[in-house]
């Protein structure tokens, strides 16, 4: 049986009070490209409903509906007559999923690359030679010593290790 977790609901509300404006009209789901293609299996209205009810287990552990299927196209947020910031709320939920290692591996891999290299896609030898052939300048990206204090302070370093399991 699902239990209402008021603490979880309040945590989301604290980050984004617009959650409380939702009156479940489903305009979001009618404009959602992923809802369309999954025939409603993915359903932004439902995610907001579960968040309003504080159903943490469904959203984070079971992920049914799966918040990670959101394409972040921002149509729902744009269409919402109540100005509920859906994608912002989904981000808060996904941030909580990340803390518990409940996320698709690709997100962890991308974060690891950024924490280790400062950029999401390191320059390969073949790309460097292609850049040279096209007369493109050398790119000097951030030095890791400038970024490491940020990763340490936000704690993303440790959270990535959770994701490694």
């Amino acid at each position: 049986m699902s239990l209402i977790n008021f603490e979880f609901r309040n945590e989301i509300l604290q980050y984004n009070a617009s959650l409380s404006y939702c009156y479940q009209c489903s305009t979001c789901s009618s404009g959602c490209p992923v809802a369309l293609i999954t025939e409603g299996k993915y359903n932004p209205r439902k995610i907001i409903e579960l968040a309003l009810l504080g159903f943490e287990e469904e959203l984070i552990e079971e992920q049914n509906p799966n918040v990670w299927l959101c394409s972040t196209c921002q149509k729902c947020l744009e269409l919402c007559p109540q100005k509920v910031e859906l994608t912002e709320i989904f981000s808060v939920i996904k941030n909580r999923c990340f803390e518990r290692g409940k996320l698709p591996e690709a997100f962890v891999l991308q974060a690891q690359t950024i924490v280790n290299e400062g950029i999401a896609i390191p320059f390969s030898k073949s790309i460097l030679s292609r850049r040279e052939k096209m007369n493109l300048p050398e790119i000097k990206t951030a030095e890791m010593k400038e970024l490491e204090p940020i990763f340490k302070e936000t704690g993303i370093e440790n959270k990535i290790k959770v994701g490694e399991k």
Partner: protein
Amino acid sequence: MEYDLFLGCVIPARLPFLEASARKVFDKMGIQLNDVDGFSCCPDPTGIEQIDQDTWLALGARNLSLSNNGNGGIISLCSGCVETLKGVNYHINKDEKVKEKTNKILKKAGTQYDGLTSVKHFGQVLYENLELIKKHLVNPLDGFKVAVHYGCHYLRPSEIIGWDDPFEPFTIDSIIQALGAETIEYEMKLECCGNPVDKSDKELSLLMIGNKLESIINSGANCVALVCPACYQQFDFNQRELNKLNETDYDIPIFYLSELVALAFGIDPNELGFKYHRAKPTALLQEFNFLK
């Protein structure tokens, strides 16, 4: 006119030919793009923002702090970078607590951000200089029937992007029409390409781009124009894969907006790296006398 060029990751490290076309176009227009040392990943609004907001804010603010406010601020060739950089600005300026929290993190890295760096998508800069584009027009794109794909983050959330119209966009169509090409309306024009879903569900992501390509091909367009490297990869890299899966025969050229402007400016197509496209535009370019 000058801007600080924010390249991000995908374009310089995977699709440098798109960067080449943009540099050539802005050079022709006399708009100076400054290379700035020390940028990191923007970071990805469909990646890092989704898993760790604080890191997203701090890295974004650090990047913004590196731009010199004395010129036009930052210009970016990528809609994802634009959403992140504009989004970080928006959140920092909307809520003093977010600004304080972000600057507390940045202090550890020896820097601060005031929230004042302006950010523009290269499509915006082109649209703002439409008359200048017309002046440099050498080879009008006669015969090009272009399906414009705006993508999501060029337009939305409109409160953050503050540019064009979130549901009736017109700026890229106007630029392409100014180049002498025809733009073609199609049913799924506003739909997402599906690229961000790839990280969670590859099959779903392919279904989304498949539907979009089908709608474009049915519209009678002979090429696609777009302004985001994530969309570019989704459209150009997946046609062959979809053909294998569904026995379709998609082979429609995908152009970056800067490539079309470069062609119309008379820049030699051989300098533009069309050979790196997977759906080759060679036949189209030959048909309309851009290539022999």
